[in-house]
């Protein structure tokens, strides 16, 4: 009995240390971004609470038109793209789960084939150029308009909708579109929420295609973040203006500004995360589907 208890405690401690390796680096970035500039030298890599408190970094970052614009771009792309994703995916899932649909196997075959074959970035870029979407928001909004994995997940939910409901509606002479929006979508709310959240996270985190297809003024936050934090391109981001305005009041510190930008990029994810836990993890635990 005692041996089991020791074993249990060892497990708990090991898992706790594991969670610390994830929490501490994130809190550390938050702490750096909120510390007051004169106390920044006291902040170590293991600090989890800000030394002193100052929002100067956020003032500098959010007064920068480039960052504001990129935040706007990111929100715009995420909202529009996710809406289109949900609309197209739910419509396709509805059509493909109609028991009487002819040609279903052909459609599914095309989609599975498309899922397995990855042409790579160069042919994709050439097509984008050919259809004239380079330099347009539509390039990043449309290029992943329907994700086959999510489509299949949604189809499984739609298959569970009782056929009697649909037949009753059909007898009343209700059309397909009304049946989809009035019967299926309300019943499949958790599934729609799940794939909606996944689409949203995907678009918020997208940086690669955006940096290729979009003009600089259209770049979302992740591209700017990459320039600033990964490529260490500080000059273009912190303009001369903010240097003049803020440098007298406090020493500007690039590490702290980078930390602030990372925090801005994480906040929306942290806001969606409880919802993801609520809908997805629950669904997976019951259904055993991996996304």
């Amino acid at each position: 009995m005692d041996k089991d208890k020791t074993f249990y405690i060892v497990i708990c401690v090991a898992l706790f240390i594991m969670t610390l390796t994830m929490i501490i680096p994130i809190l550390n970035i938050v702490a750096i971004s909120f510390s007051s500039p004169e106390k920044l030298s006291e902040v170590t890599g293991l600090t989890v609470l800000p030394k002193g408190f100052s929002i100067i970094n956020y003032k500098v970052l959010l007064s920068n038109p480039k960052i504001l614009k990129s935040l706007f771009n990111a929100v715009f792309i995420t909202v529009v793209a996710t809406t289109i994703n949900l609309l197209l995916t739910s419509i396709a899932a509805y059509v493909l789960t109609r028991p009487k649909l002819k040609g279903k196997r052909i459609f599914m075959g095309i989609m599975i084939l498309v899922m397995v074959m990855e042409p790579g970035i160069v042919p994709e870029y050439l097509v984008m150029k050919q259809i004239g979407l380079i330099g347009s928001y539509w390039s990043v909004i449309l290029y992943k308009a329907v994700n086959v994995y999510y489509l299949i997940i949604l189809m499984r939910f739609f298959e569970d909708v009782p056929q009697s409901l649909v037949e009753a509606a059909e007898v009343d002479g209700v059309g397909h579109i009304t049946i989809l929006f009035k019967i299926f979508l309300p019943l499949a709310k958790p599934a729609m929420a799940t794939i909606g959240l996944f689409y949203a996270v995907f678009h918020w985190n997208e940086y690669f295609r955006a940096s290729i297809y979009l003009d600089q003024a259209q770049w979302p936050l992740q591209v700017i973040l990459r320039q600033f934090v990964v490529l260490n391109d500080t000059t273009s981001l912190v303009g001369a203006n903010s240097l003049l305005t803020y440098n007298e009041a406090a020493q500007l510190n690039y590490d702290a500004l980078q930390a602030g930008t990372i925090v801005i990029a994480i906040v929306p994810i942290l806001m969606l995360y409880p919802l993801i836990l609520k809908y997805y993890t629950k669904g997976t635990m019951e259904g055993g589907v991996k996304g």
Partner: protein
Amino acid sequence: MSEIKVTQKKVFFKKLKWDKHYWKNNWILYLLLLPTLIFFATFHIMPILKMRLAFEDFRIIGANEWVGLKYFKMLFASPAFLSVLKNTAIISTMKLVLLMPVPILLSLILNELKTGKYRKYVQSVIYLPHFLSWVVIAGIWISLLSFNGGVNQMMGFFNMPSIDYMTSKTHIRWILLFSEMWRSAGWDSIIYIAALMKINPALYEAARIDGATKLQQIKFITLPELIPTIITVFILNLGFFMSAGFDQVFNLMNDSVISVIDILDTYVYRIGLVGGQYSFSIAASLFKGVIGIVLIFSTHYVAKRISGKGLW
């Protein structure tokens, strides 16, 4: 055989054509599906068709010229490509061998944890990194591994010298391994946890009555039940063998370490999009795609031969 197929086809077309009632009621379904089909045609099928450029010389004006296997021959004569191929294989093998057991182990440990607040806390934390972009994770890790970062401070605590990890050729591949583990181990354990929850508790009950120890229970009940899931994950991972994680490498790469972590996808991006050598880079992508498909199918058949269970 073929006659049957022909008649099947005839019947199929007959059904499509003659069922006036069906079409009157259901044409709208096809209209509804049309945007999705156009999307697939534009963003998936057109790029796949574009891959024929691997066999052609690209011309800005006029038709492209068919050159056969010229670019594939160039590819295999190129030392840069071979070195990239080697890096891809090394990084993928490291991830496959060393990272695959981690989520399995994690799910076994989590399974021992009683359901309650603590388990909820652990699960909520370990899934989180999966939702951060590689740009963000690279930002966090670069700061963590910098000369004055957390890791070096901890090393200093044990009187170890500071190392600039991100530019160290000996460390960078291990950084790829650990950052991948940091991001995905928790999330990847979900599929195993789901499989563990389906095991009949009566099996453990019976084993306990027979006096089996915890380790014996894991060895004789849990692991055999997990094997189909493990095989599925293994085959799928092998399908990504040639990818080796583009976003990760792309964001953790710098000039000092490019020679040891430049992988196929980063190479294709640099040569193709930055360098403008379309045919050459598409030839590399095509090679990658073919190997990926071969790997998936061959492991599927081997797994099916050995264990009776494959991907489908």
